[in-house]
């Protein structure tokens, strides 16, 4: 059995590293969060991961708050604090630094190439998240249908996503899923 401080250190290191790989934000690292928390460390079951992702999406505030839920589940209040700080702290400092220097290189060729090269990577990462999450949630045909219908409405209409989440919650309560 690992001691508490060992677990907190692991949480801090893992989430801090992950934050620097999160090109495209928290949604881009859902597969990596799943890999680490379910497959590598065994902190969560598959179902718990899917639950927590869904909760973080439905709750107000940024989706990155899934790491707070995971930290809380793994190591209580301190786990939540450490996970949130590790995921949201270091990259914010980097952003501050870059925001100051970036403008200086506004027209540099390399800056244009770096920016242009990173965008498709982040879209690909979010695509990977879509694959992993859709698979994790599709335990039967009605769940697949909900994924497809929600995606279609979110793509072709400008409805607030909250209504779509509410509709799905009602369908779940009614026992349709």
């Amino acid at each position, binding site marked *: 059995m690992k001691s508490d401080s060992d677990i907190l250190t692991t949480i801090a290191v893992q989430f801090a590293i992950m934050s620097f790989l999160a090109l495209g934000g928290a949604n881009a690292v859902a597969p990596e969060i799943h890999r680490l928390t379910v497959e590598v460390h065994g902190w969560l079951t598959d179902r718990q991961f899917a639950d927590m992702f869904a909760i973080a999406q439905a709750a107000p505030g940024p989706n990155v708050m899934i790491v707070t839920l995971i930290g809380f589940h793994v190591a209580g209040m301190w786990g939540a604090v450490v996970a949130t700080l590790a995921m949201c702290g270091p990259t914010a400092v*980097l952003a501050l630094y870059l925001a100051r220097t970036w403008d200086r290189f506004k027209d540099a060729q390399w800056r244009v190439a770096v920016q242009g090269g990173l965008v498709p990577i982040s879209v690909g990462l979010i695509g990977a998240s879509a694959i992993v999450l859709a698979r994790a949630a599709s335990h039967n045909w009605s769940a697949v249908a909900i994924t497809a219908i929600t995606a279609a409405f979110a793509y072709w209409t400008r409805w607030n996503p909250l209504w779509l989440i509410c509709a799905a919650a009602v369908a779940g309560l009614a026992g349709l899923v």
Partner: protein
Amino acid sequence: MPEPVSPPAPAAPIPSHAELFFAFFKITLSGFGGTLPWTRRMFVEEKRWMTDNEFNNVYALCQFLPGPNIVNLTTVFGSRMRGPTGAMAAWAGFLLLPFCMMIAVGLLYERYGDVDVARRLLSGIAPAAAGLIVATVAKMATPMFARFGPAPFVIVGTAFAIGVMRWPLLWVLAALVPVSIALTWWRRR
């Protein structure tokens, strides 16, 4: 991106630390379904702390930086207004309420997560949450697939390596980021 027809330079005085903190606190309070539109509304339209153009510049930068974009955005806004301590005020204002809410939800989940009603709710919400991500990526990828170039290959390659093969993120990025940047560089010359 079209040139925004924006109001003239912000007329408002620079906000204090407390104003920054509560501005972002208020944004998260109303931020169901994404906080970005609310942030723009407060900064550009309501308080006039920034012009539309300044907002877009910061947003473009934070979109491709690593880490939670919206948190980075908040921090950079805070520092533009009041330096490093302003950044901290904005950061804290933005994260405090969602953090407390997650603790509350976490407590509920640990206690009642296995109750039938909670299982039904979550089994409905989980596929919808996945569907929202599918739509997000579709919206982002559509314009990129319409142009000829390396981007579609990079998108599909990344999604396949992580989403299907489940390879570790670090190695995939170490391999694909240089390739993608080199391809972009080469096409622009």
